[in-house]
Structure formats: structure tokens, C-alpha cells
């Protein structure tokens, strides 16, 4: 009996130390990019130009949609913009741009300067709608299919690798 207790104790300590060792190489900064597979609901975005409202129905019309949250005052948004321009040429994909906590004049200037990749243009001036999408910083992008199910999340500016991943998904069948 005593031997069993001793073995359990030793095993427990080894286990704890191994977990500690394993944790040393892990990333401590939290990121929500693992939250995929959920269906987006209650989509209610004001259009950028007019008083139209975008809902799930509008977005479900396209096969794949990339929802991109951006603002003119956000420096990394400038850096990722060329990738968005590239993606706007893809056949199976439509990009929904949500202008986040921004002023219309500045946003328009930004797009005039760098190009407009957005098929749909929406805005979220208070930032409250972004919570519905699980956004916590910009830029952030979400790739969804025509059932508004989240396929992939990109926290931070898009890079080359992200671009290839998106192309792979939207061009597969």
C-alpha cells in the first residue's frame, strides 16, 4: 500500500514538471483565431454610403466572403491593403469591408489612395457590431462560407501565407 502511494506521489511530481517544461515554449498572448466553425448570426451592419442595412441574407449570396475590419487611422491596415486588393480579383470570393470607429472623410481618402477591394462596404462607428463578430482589434479578417460559418480567422494584418491559405480554401471544391 505504501509503495503505491509513493509511486503515485512521484508520478504526480513528474507529471507537473513535464507540464511546466512543455509550457515554456507556448505562446502566452491570447488569440481568438482558433474559434472557427461557429455560425455568425444577427448580422446587422450599416452600409458605408447609404442607409441600407446588410444582413446575413445579403452575405449568403456569395460562395465565400472575407469580412475585413479596417480603419484609416490603423497603420497595419495600410500594410495589409495590397493583399486585399489581390484578393478582390478572386472569382469565388467577395470582400465585405467594415469601417471601424472611423470618419467617412478619412475612410474615403484611404480608399481613394490605396484602392477599394470591397464588394460590400459597411461601417461600425461605435464598434459595438464588431463584438458580434468576435473582433477585439484591427485589422482583423474572417473568412466565411455561404452559410455564414466561420472557416478561418486572421487576427492582425494579412500576410503572404494568409493569402495562400485563403486562395486554397476558396478554390477547392
Amino acid at each position, binding site marked *: 500500500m505504501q509503495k503505491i502511494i509513493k509511486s503515485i506521489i512521484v508520478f504526480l511530481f513528474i507529471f507537473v514538471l513535464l507540464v511546466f517544461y512543455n509550457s515554456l515554449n507556448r505562446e502566452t498572448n*491570447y488569440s*481568438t483565431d482558433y*474559434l472557427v466553425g461557429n455560425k455568425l448570426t444577427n448580422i446587422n451592419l450599416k452600409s458605408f454610403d447609404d442607409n441600407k442595412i446588410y444582413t446575413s441574407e445579403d452575405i449568403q449570396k456569395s460562395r465565400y466572403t472575407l469580412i475585413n475590419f479596417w480603419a484609416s487611422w490603423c497603420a497595419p491596415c495600410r500594410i495589409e491593403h495590397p493583399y486585399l486588393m489581390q484578393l478582390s480579383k478572386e472569382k469565388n470570393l467577395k470582400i465585405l469591408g467594415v469601417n471601424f*470607429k472611423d470618419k467617412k472623410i478619412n475612410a474615403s481618402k484611404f480608399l481613394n489612395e490605396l484602392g477599394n477591394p470591397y464588394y460590400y462596404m459597411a461601417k461600425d462607428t*461605435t*464598434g459595438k457590431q*464588431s*463584438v458580434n463578430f468576435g473582433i*477585439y*482589434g484591427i485589422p482583423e479578417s474572417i473568412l466565411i462560407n455561404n452559410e455564414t460559418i466561420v472557416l478561418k480567422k486572421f487576427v492582425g494584418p494579412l500576410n503572404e501565407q494568409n493569402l495562400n491559405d485563403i486562395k486554397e480554401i476558396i478554390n477547392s471544391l
Partner: protein
Amino acid sequence: MRFKILLIIFFLNLNINLYANELVEESKIHKNLRCLVCQGQSIADSNSDFALTLKMVVKDLIDQGKTEEEIYSFLSDKYGDWILYKPKINQGNLLLWGLPYLALIIGGVIIVFLIRKSSKKA
């Protein structure tokens, strides 16, 4: 007569309590939500953009009549369980919530056992 006055005072107190509870609830919810862009702060303590946005959303949800649990459920769906400071009481967290009390019970059993053993010897 004195009893009636006491009763009135008692109910007045209750009402004040209820009102205070509504505001307290908002603060309580803020303290339970983690600011995702900060290093270990709740949205109650943080001034970051994200915290301010989330506070607005929480207020809207309360106004819509959502309960505390519903708010937590909504936000953890969108941001993951990490955003909640109070771990959910589910199967995965059973050890977390259970072990302390288990330790308490085991400790108590050991002490009772020790005392019983000693009194047998005496």
C-alpha cells in the same frame, strides 16, 4: 405601531437595495470580463479601446433584458472561455472547482482519524 414603522423602514431598505443591485450588477459583470488586449486586467480596470467597446455592449445587453449568465455565454461564444474570469462550471473544470473542497474533506477525515486513533490508545 412601532412594528409597522419597522416594517416600512425594512421595505424601504429593500427597495434601495434593489436599485443598487442593478448598478452593482453592471460593475460585477465588468469585473468578470477579461480585457483581451491587456496584460491581466478586467474591462472594469482597463481603459483600452476594446474595454470601452465591450462596456457599451454589456450595457446594451443588460438593457435588452439579458441575464448575467446569458451575457457571459454570448461573449464566451465570440471570444472563447478565456474572456471570463470566473471559470465555467462544466466537465472540463470539474477538477478546478472540486479539488479544493475534496482537499477540505480529506483533511477533515485525516484529522478525525488521527484523533480517533489517539483516543483508542488512551
